[in-house]
């Protein structure tokens, strides 16, 4: 039996007094797209950040392709060394809501620098590779622009190219379109759709219910730090027996997203 790409096991997380995640267990199979939806403050971004060890779970464990993330397995549970953590993380690409492009580098520099400094590629090899990635997200012509000279949608596509250049097997997206207007949202979602069709394992925190319904193989619904539902879009949208989910989806339907029915 092969390991799931991501295995979240009994993860809880507390910020001081607040319980942000409550005993969450879920698996993401390789090549599948899971979308995390839920109201603000439901813990979906925190859960995603735990999957990259940008947040530490208070209890529980997370495995990436069978390997522990953040803490070692076994009776002598200890924090992984920075080198161990980097090795497990190297399978993960992360895309943030605020893009987080480095402002002092061009688009090309943003994509190429880790190839040079982390992967040890020569400058010209790294730039060739970076250029190919930028081309893939349709931004070859913008390669020599600085982030401040790019639209939000373009910046996010550069951020996706930057993550993809490092050959991750898993891509995590933290509300990738929430900082974009609807027109720019489309261009980013198209890139993500393309990526999903190529078989990338993806976990996407999103408010784009339409995207979740059409691209997601699984939808996870969180509310109040609990995972209430992790099932196929059909199961989630066709028969939302869970009252809290029904209520949540209704707010979208009210806004005219009736294609979900």
């Amino acid at each position, binding site marked *: 039996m092969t390991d799931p790409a991501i295995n979240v096991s009994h993860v809880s997380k507390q910020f001081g007094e607040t319980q942000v995640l409550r005993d969450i267990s879920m698996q993401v199979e390789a090549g599948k797209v899971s979308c995390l939806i839920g109201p603000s403050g439901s813990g979906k971004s925190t859960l995603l950040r735990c999957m*990259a060890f*940008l947040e530490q779970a208070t209890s529980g464990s997370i495995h990436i392709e069978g390997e522990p993330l953040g803490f070692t397995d076994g009776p002598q549970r200890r924090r992984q060394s*920075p080198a161990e953590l*980097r090795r497990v*993380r*190297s399978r*993960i*690409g*992360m895309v*943030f809501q*605020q893009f*987080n*492009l*480095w*402002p*002092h*580098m*061009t688009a090309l520099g943003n994509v190429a*620098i*880790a190839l040079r*400094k*982390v*992967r040890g590629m020569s400058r010209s090899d790294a730039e060739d590779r970076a250029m190919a990635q930028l081309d893939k997200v349709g931004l070859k012509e913008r390669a020599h622009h*600085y*982030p*401040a000279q790019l639209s939000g949608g373009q910046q996010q596509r550069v*951020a996706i190219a*930057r*993550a993809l250049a*490092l050959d991750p097997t898993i891509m995590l997206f933290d509300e990738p379109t929430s900082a974009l207007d609807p027109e720019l949202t489309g261009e980013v979602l198209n890139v993500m759709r393309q990526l999903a069709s190529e078989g990338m394992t993806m976990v996407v925190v999103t408010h784009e219910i339409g995207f979740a319904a059409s691209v997601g193989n699984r939808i996870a619904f969180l509310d109040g730090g609990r995972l209430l539902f992790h099932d196929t879009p059909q199961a989630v949208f066709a028969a939302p027996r869970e009252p809290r989910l029904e209520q949540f989806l209704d707010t979208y339907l009210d806004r005219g997203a009736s294609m979900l029915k």
Partner: protein
Amino acid sequence: MTWKLFSLLLEASLMTILVSAVSILMGLVMAIVLSGLRMSGSRVADAGAGVFISFFRGVPLLVQLLLIFNLLPVIGITLPSLATAIIGLSLCTAAYQAENLRGGFEGVAPGLIESAEMAGFTRMQSFIYIRTPIALRMTFPALVNEAILILKASSLVSVVGLIELTKMAQNLSASTYRPLPIFAAAGVIYLAINLVVAAIGQRAENALPGLPGK
């Protein structure tokens, strides 16, 4: 004010420029290292850098220069006055520049560091390639300001025996008994140098990519 006297002042001002420029650059490198120590996560390194900064910010530059000038021979080191002047000035400006940079480092958005972490950078690589360049850009105007302050503060290094612009003006006024035109000329030269520094700073600032608001 003869041309002869003025050209002597101009010549001495080259020493002022040399001492200041080298001190600013050495101070900048030291300030980056100090910032790295402060953020290294080691309490000892942080405390050491803190003490260094407090001392060199808290003790007058003139006293620092005289201390170094008199201390070094005691421990068996004899240096030319140019080296002594540069050491004194650069240690002092390092402390101020480290404090300037601190604001810049604190202003680097946490998300930019997280994305470096996710790209596989070590802490050190993130510091060198991401945090420092961004912090430098954000504090660049303060660096230009510091350069101007150091150019003026360099008038103190005559106490270690270096003949720079101010010392030359003193010598000339003593030998000619005409202090007024000579110090006026020295003032004009300082002003001219600093106007050039400010103009270069402004141009560099406009040319630097990735500054906020651009």
